[in-house]
């Protein structure tokens, strides 16, 4: 028999590397890629999600989607929610990051405090805020005689998206704040001091020096908030469950039902798995396009030190 080699050759090393990759690749294939491809196939059928019977129906599901008021409304609501949410979360997170990196007293306490809501699960958080919106705030509003607050904000179709943005900002801004904090701390103090010696005010320093130097943090934060808002499901489910009802294109639709909830309800509540899959495919394409555009715009603004 040949003597055992101490060092493996190039070929063997390649095989070893490949073997180490197998568990991860296999898991990725089985739980992401395969279901994804099967899902695309289902979107061309009329499968109900339970019975084995399914027929290929071509593009019928995709055609149905674009005439369905519920889906179109969910799509527009999601875009609106995402727009407000991205702005609200990032503005709040950036201001909190400035606060906790300044010399203010108790900044470590703030840092922990702002982050804590992020540790609460979305379903729990949604239920807590539902109670706040439906019982506590109206009571406060009535006591103070503020008409706009004395009725629940989550049962009014006009204010419900704002209420969801509030809850999501409360939850998510602390997490994004941490990214900004890390980025701010990575910027050399000398640059800021030099600017202040040159007579730049605090806000000038923030806008002209801090923000351009933090561009990579904005790329990642905007990406995270954008995709997170688009995919919002748990808080939506627990806080409003899609309600209240409003009229859209002459049909009753759910005023706060976002895309993910709409897809879930289509597939599981109405047992229209194939239609839900078709919606999910559209959802995927839109999300990929939007995030690619966002990342490429942000990337072009990043500067190297």
């Amino acid at each position, binding site marked *: 028999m040949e003597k055992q080699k101490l060092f493996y050759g190039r070929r063997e090393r390649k095989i070893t590397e490949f073997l180490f990759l197998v568990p991860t690749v296999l898991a990725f294939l089985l739980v992401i890629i395969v279901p994804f491809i099967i899902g695309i196939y289902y979107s061309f059928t009329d499968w109900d999600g339970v019975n084995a019977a399914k027929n290929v129906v071509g593009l019928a599901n995709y055609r149905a989607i674009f005439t369905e008021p519920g889906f179109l409304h969910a799509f527009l609501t999601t875009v609106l929610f995402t727009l407000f949410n991205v702005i609200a979360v990032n503005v709040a997170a950036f201001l909190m990051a400035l606060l906790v990196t300044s010399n203010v007293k108790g900044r470590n306490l703030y840092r922990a405090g702002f982050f804590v809501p992020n540790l609460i699960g979305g379903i729990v958080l949604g239920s807590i805020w539902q109670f706040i919106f439906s019982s506590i705030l109206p009571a406060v509003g009535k006591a103070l005689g503020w008409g706009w607050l004395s009725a629940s904000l989550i049962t009014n179709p006009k204010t419900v998206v704002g209420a969801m943005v509030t809850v999501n900002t409360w939850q998510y801004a602390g997490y994004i704040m941490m990214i900004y904090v890390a980025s701010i701390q990575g910027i050399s103090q000398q640059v800021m001091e030099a600017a202040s010696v040159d007579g730049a005010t605090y806000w000038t320093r923030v806008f002209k020096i801090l923000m351009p130097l933090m561009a990579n943090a904005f790329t990642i934060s905007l990406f995270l908030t954008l995709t997170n808002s688009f995919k919002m499901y748990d808080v939506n489910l627990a806080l409003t*469950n899609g*309600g209240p009802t409003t009229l859209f294109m002459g049909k009753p639709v759910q005023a706060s039902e976002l895309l993910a909830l709409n897809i879930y309800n289509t597939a599981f509540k*109405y047992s229209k798995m194939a239609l839900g899959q078709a919606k999910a495919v559209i959802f995927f394409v839109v999300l990929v396009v939007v995030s690619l555009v966002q990342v490429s715009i942000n990337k072009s603004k990043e500067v190297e030190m």
Partner: protein
Amino acid sequence: MKKILVLVLALVMALSAVSALADITIVQNKVEIDAALQEYAAEFSKDAGYNVKVITAGGSSDYNTALKAEFASGKEPDIFVIEGPTGYELYKDKIADMTGEEWTQYTAAAYMDGDKVVGFPVAVEGYGMAYNKDILDKAGIDPATLTNVDAYQAAFEKLDSMKEELGLDAVVSMVAGTAPGMTWVTGLHNFNIYLTVGLDRNDTSIIDQVLEGKVDEDRFHAYCEYVALIFKYSDPEMLINGTQDMQLAAFANGKTAFYHQGNWMDPNIVALNVNFPMAYAPHAFLHEDTDGILVNAPSWYVVNENAGNAEQAIDFLNALADTEAGHDYMVNKAAMVPAFTNVTIEPATPLSKSVMEWNAAGKTYSWQQYKLPDGFGMGTLGPIYEMLASGAIDEPTFEQMMKDAIATIPTL
């Protein structure tokens, strides 16, 4: 070695054959009655000369999986539970025909396949317009007169005008909100009023029509007016914002005279120490009298012919329906409302007691809302009720939108 194995196998088979002769097995899904049923079965076995074994698998999906496993194991259960047409269709070929058996004469809630009686109702659940008798007495309203919509209209108006005097926030405690997840109250239970009130229990004409996308114009118009009437005399905030707990609290604290919920709320009513007398009045939405509440069995025991002990299994069910011990088990031990008219033991809880009285009097209408397509009642009709409740649409628009929604059923 091989010989021993064969011997052991033969022994096991012989034993199981013996036990199969001596035992009947019940596979059931109500975890909350497991202990009571085990105890009853053990008592029953003492006198019966055969053993009754109870296997409980909780939760709907767990139960269905467990039941399939029991069948697959080759030792099929003698009695098992079906929860409706889906379960029945699946096991149809094995299920025994119990037409003419002793228990069938005492109930109207058996599971029927055409004229064949196939399912023994485990219990019944019911709902109507629950009322606070003290408040109605003070207002001088006799609940026995609430058998048509005109009587309701008059009663609501009277109570509404006496709100301050009676300490009421609203006349009816009703919920319709999507956010608190209450659309089952409107889209399923309330909608079923249209489907069955005033009809014979076996009359499926209205639901059949709805499933074809059509409505009976006059009846539907009367129904929509009834919905609008209830909403008009409900607390608008409660309608869209109220949870099940808030809805109950308003009624239990004497802040409303009526309460639109079923007898499954009894444990919560007991927990709140409610001490006023209450009972159900009919959901009478027509101008003609309809004197009955909506009662149905949520599940049924069926007997498996294939297991070979059908006779003993049917004896067990007969005893349940026709002996003191069986009645005591159902009412006192398992805290259920029996579906049988010959039961004289009264439940201790107020709404169940009322359901039992209506049932014993034979004044009940059936539940047909579960024949609606998946998600239709709660997801499609529910939001339309909510808009009427919030004032976003008026009654004629509500009626039209409901009709439009029903018209889409054949395409679902």
